[in-house]
Structures are given as structure tokens and as C-alpha cells.
């Protein structure tokens, strides 16, 4: 097998992984401090993608579009928290799951009404469409490298916020005992709103970066959301560090597996059997990985709290 192809797929996996991290980070933060399972997190990915596509169209500039879409997604996130999610924190997980399931139906339909059911395409500006040769003989799209860079930067920013700021201190304190934080005079309601909106921005950012790679259509966030669940199960719910490592792991295993597994299987069985079983096994690979990790560590790799 061509090592350069494998390397390229490794980078694709890395890019997919950081995108999953952007989604999983918000999900795990919200779960960590508010004890809330939010299925509608995938809708925020979709809303980010749509807002970016629209604003890029208005401003005629890719960066200008993102600059408008990011605060807009923050505002949507804050609005959703205040109107709908706030009432759900005290409910049990089953009720949270079903209520946010209802929210997904609502958001998908709103998007269909505003932007129509047809897929949208947001092109890339010329300066982002090129390719670079990181390793001689292996050109790689600039935009995908930028996604990796943005993902790593966001991971760094989250780490800096959580570990070294007053806000991060409140987030960590809220995760261990949010009633006590409230009792000590912190406005816990606005803290929750801020954290949720922050998570929405990360998810929205994933959608914004995904837009130019694929098409933007209703429901694009949902398959990603389920993968983000796999990520936080593997990483340990509530753990940002676990989410990061698991996201990269899932991204790379899924992407490389799809290319390498059929080739690998050919070494053991007939070509025809490998061509049939290869894609089937490859599509299950990350779930098998998840199951294997759970057998060894039922609370994930980095359990932050018992949930």
C-alpha cells in the first residue's frame, strides 16, 4: 500500500478528529457542569454552517462571513439556552433526551423553511483552494490544514480558559458542585448561559469549516453528533482532555480504517470477500473500538466524574 496515500489519509483523519473535538468539547462541557444531555447540539453545527454560508454570501468574503457567523452562533446558543434548555437541567436524562429530540425536529424544520430543503454550497476563496507539499510529492489541500490548525488552536484556547482563568475556575467548580458555586455568590444562571453559548460557538465553528468541504443541508449535524457521543464515551464524560484524545483517535481510526482495512483484508481472504467485508467492517470500526475500550474501562479513558 502506498505510504503517501496512507499519510494523506492520516491527515484527513486528523482533520476529521479535530472537527469531532470541536463538537464534543461543547457537549462534554455542558454535560460536565449542567448534567445535561443535549441531542440538539448537532443542530448548532447545522446552524453555524448555514449562518456562515449566508454571511459569506452577504459580505462576499470568507473571513468576513465567519467573523459575523461566530457571534451570531453565540447569540443563537444563548437564546436556545434561555428559552428552552434552562428548564431541562432539573429533569432526568430521559426527559432531556426526548425534549432535545423535539428541538432537533424544530430546528431542522426552521432551517428548511428559512433556507429551503436544497443543499447549499459555499465555495472557498482562491487563497484557500490551493495545495501545499508538506512532504515532497504529497500535495495536501491548504484548507484542510487550516481546519487542523483551527482545531488545535481551539483546543489550546479551551485548555487555557479552563485551566488558567477565573471563568475556567468557575467551570471546574460548577462541575463538582454547582449549587455551592451559586451559594458563594456566583450568578450560576448566566454562567450556564455563557458556557452553553461557548459550546454552541465551537459546534458552529465545526459546521462553518465543514460547509466548504461538503454541502450544507438540513440535519448535517446529526451523524456528527452521534460520533461526538462515541468520542465522549471513549474519552470519559466531562473530560476535555479525554474528548481531545478520543476525537483524534476516532477521526484517524475511522478515516484510515476505511482505506486500509479492505487492503489489509485482501492479505487474508479472497479479493471478492475483502471487497464485500472491508467496507462493512470499516464502517463499524470505531464502534468496535468503543466497545473494546469500554470492556477495559467502563468510565472511558479519562473519567472526570461519575455520571
Amino acid at each position, binding site marked *: 500500500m502506498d505510504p503517501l496515500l496512507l499519510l494523506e489519509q492520516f491527515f484527513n483523519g486528523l482533520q476529521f478528529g479535530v472537527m469531532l473535538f470541536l463538537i464534543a468539547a461543547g457537549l462534554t462541557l455542558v454535560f460536565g457542569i449542567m448534567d445535561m444531555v443535549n441531542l440538539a447540539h448537532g443542530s448548532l453545527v447545522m446552524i453555524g454552517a448555514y449562518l456562515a454560508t449566508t454571511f459569506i454570501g452577504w459580505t462576499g468574503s470568507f473571513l468576513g462571513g465567519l467573523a459575523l457567523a461566530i457571534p451570531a452562533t453565540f447569540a443563537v446558543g444563548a437564546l436556545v439556552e434561555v428559552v428552552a434548555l434552562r428548564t431541562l437541567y432539573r429533569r432526568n436524562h*430521559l426527559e432531556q433526551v426526548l425534549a432535545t429530540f423535539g428541538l*432537533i425536529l424544530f430546528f431542522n424544520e426552521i432551517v428548511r423553511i428559512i433556507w429551503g430543503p436544497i443543499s447549499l454550497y459555499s465555495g472557498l476563496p482562491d487563497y484557500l483552494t490551493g495545495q501545499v507539499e508538506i512532504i515532497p510529492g504529497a500535495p495536501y489541500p491548504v484548507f484542510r490544514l487550516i481546519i487542523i490548525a483551527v482545531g488545535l488552536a481551539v483546543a489550546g484556547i479551551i485548555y487555557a480558559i479552563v485551566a488558567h482563568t477565573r471563568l475556567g475556575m468557575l467551570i471546574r467548580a460548577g462541575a463538582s458542585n454547582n449549587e455551592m458555586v451559586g451559594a458563594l455568590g456566583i450568578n450560576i444562571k448566566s454562567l450556564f448561559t455563557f458556557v452553553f453559548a461557548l459550546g454552541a460557538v465551537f459546534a458552529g465553528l465545526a459546521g462553518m469549516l465543514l460547509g466548504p468541504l461538503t454541502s450544507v443541508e438540513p440535519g448535517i449535524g446529526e451523524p456528527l453528533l452521534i460520533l461526538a457521543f462515541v468520542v465522549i464515551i471513549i474519552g470519559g464524560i466531562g473530560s476535555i482532555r479525554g474528548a481531545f484524545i478520543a476525537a483524534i483517535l476516532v477521526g484517524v481510526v475511522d478515516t484510515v480504517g476505511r482505506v486500509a482495512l479492505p487492503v489489509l483484508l485482501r492479505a487474508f481472504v479472497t479479493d471478492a470477500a475483502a471487497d464485500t467485508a472491508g467496507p462493512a467492517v470499516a464502517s463499524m470500526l470505531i464502534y468496535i473500538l468503543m466497545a473494546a475500550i469500554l470492556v477495559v474501562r*467502563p468510565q472511558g479513558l479519562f473519567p472526570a466524574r461519575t455520571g
Partner: protein
Amino acid sequence: MDRRQIWLSLATLAMFAAVPPLTVIFDQPFYMDMIARIMVFAIAAVSLDLILGHGGMVSFGHAVYMGVGAYAVGILSYYGLDNGFLQIPVALGASALIGLVFGAMSLRTTGVYFIMITLAFAQMLYFLAISLEEFGGDDGMSSMRSEFGGVIDMYDAMQFYYVIFVVLALVLFGLHRLVLSRFGMVIRAARSNDRRMQAVGFPTYRYKLAAFTLASTICGLAGVLFANLNEFVSPDVMHWTHSGELMVMVIMGGMGTLIGPVLGATAFLLLEEYLPQWMEMAMTNAGEHWAIIMGPILIAIVLFGRGGIHALFAATIWRSGGKRNG
């Protein structure tokens, strides 16, 4: 399990039983198909209620066992094996085995981990079904209805309807007995306090796994009927939204009541059928956007509909467990 609940169950079944003669009298065969479909989903919802309502196991992947049952029929039919006496054991065996494996792994975890893991496993089989190019991949495949050696003709709408009806009635009766038995008592006790049950000496993991496997098997049977109903099998039946809908049916009807989920399935599917039509009447072209109303309805049911439809009829309102049990 009070007397009213039994009367409610019998009344509901009596209404289902009366549908075919009425559709013949009023010449409205459409309704027989619709109620048949409702009863198939009711079987799946009742099986979910065993683990969700009675066992407190929030499985977010239950539709997958319907898919396993349906694919068992579809794949056997693809190879020309239409005999129901073969298809049903294979379908039940497959869904039991998969339920056992998934359950064994998922039940090592609790709470929100359990919700997400059952969802992830369901998604795994969904993608597996999509990758099966031989069996139509994403598009699915058409399949024949099962044959029962001339004893039952599944292509006869009336006979097919009563087959589904009898299965539903037997499942309701069987689970009703099971829930009242010692086994059911252990499952319910483990829902309220698992640790205490273990301390008393019950291996709750094994009990829960048995319940999970049984629920998967019954749902597989619903899948067999579903494949027969549609004469078509596709990965869509395993889509995670269908697992969500089964949960909604259980909540809407009333958790842990068995007959509640039957009413919930009825209400949900009727709403899905008629909400677009009502919206179309209110405003032209509004019908296609029915989900914008359906979503908030679901939220309202979850937030305010304690006890579901069942609570409207029954004297005692079933109260959900504490936050931690969710």
C-alpha cells in the same frame, strides 16, 4: 397493576379487534392498513417499555432490533426462503443474540453512558446495513411476505391484520404476567435501587440483561411483522430517529404501564398522519413543515405530560424515578 389498567387494556384490544369489520362495512380499507401499522409499532413500544419503564434502562437504540427482525425476513426472502416457520425463529434468534451482546456491553455502564452507548451500537448496525451492497445498501430491498404453509395467508389483509393483533395481545398478556412475577419484581426493584438489590443478594446485572434480551427479541418480532407489512426492508428502520420515536411513544402513553405505550404508539402515529393534513387546512403548503409543530408538541409532552395518556384513564399516576435513575 390495578383493575382499571386491565380494563383499559381489554378495551383497547377490543377496539383494535373491531377495526376490520368496521372498515369492511364502511368500505375504508385504508384504515385497516393504518391500524395494522400502529399495532406493529405498539409491539415494539411495549417491548421497550419492559426495559425503559419497568427496568429504568434508557435504551436509545431499540429500533435496531426491529431492523434485525426485518432484515432476517428480507435476507431469507432474498434467497427464496419465504417460509415463516423458518423466518420467525431466525429473526428472533438474531435479535436475541444481538440484544444479548449489546446488552452485555451496555449494561456495564449506567445513566447517560448507557443512553449514548445504546445509541452508538444502533448506529453501528445502521451503517452496517448501509454497507451491505448485496442487500440494496442505502436503498434497501423489497421482500415477499412470509408463507405459513397455506395455514395463514399474509397477503389477505384481514388475516394479516389479525396475525398482528394476536401477536400484540399475546405480547401484552405475557409481559403483564412477567412484570407481576418475581422476575418483574426484581427488575423494578433494581430500577429504584440497584445497589440495595445487589446487597440483598440479587445478581441484578443478569436480571437486567435477561430483560434487555427479551425486549430485543420481542422487538425483533415486531420487525418481522414490519417487513411483512411494507414488503420492503431498508436501513431507514434502524435510523436513530426511529429509536427516539419509540421512546416518545412510551413516554406519551405512560411509562411502565404496558398498555400505555400501545396508546402512545396510536397517538403518535395518528398525529404523524393527521398533523400535516390539519396544517395544510390551516395554511396552504404548511403541511410539509409539520415537524415545526411536532417538535414543540414532543417537548410539551415531556415537560408537562407526567404519566402520559395512561394517566388520563388510570387512577394512580406512575411517577418517574429521581434524576439519577434517568
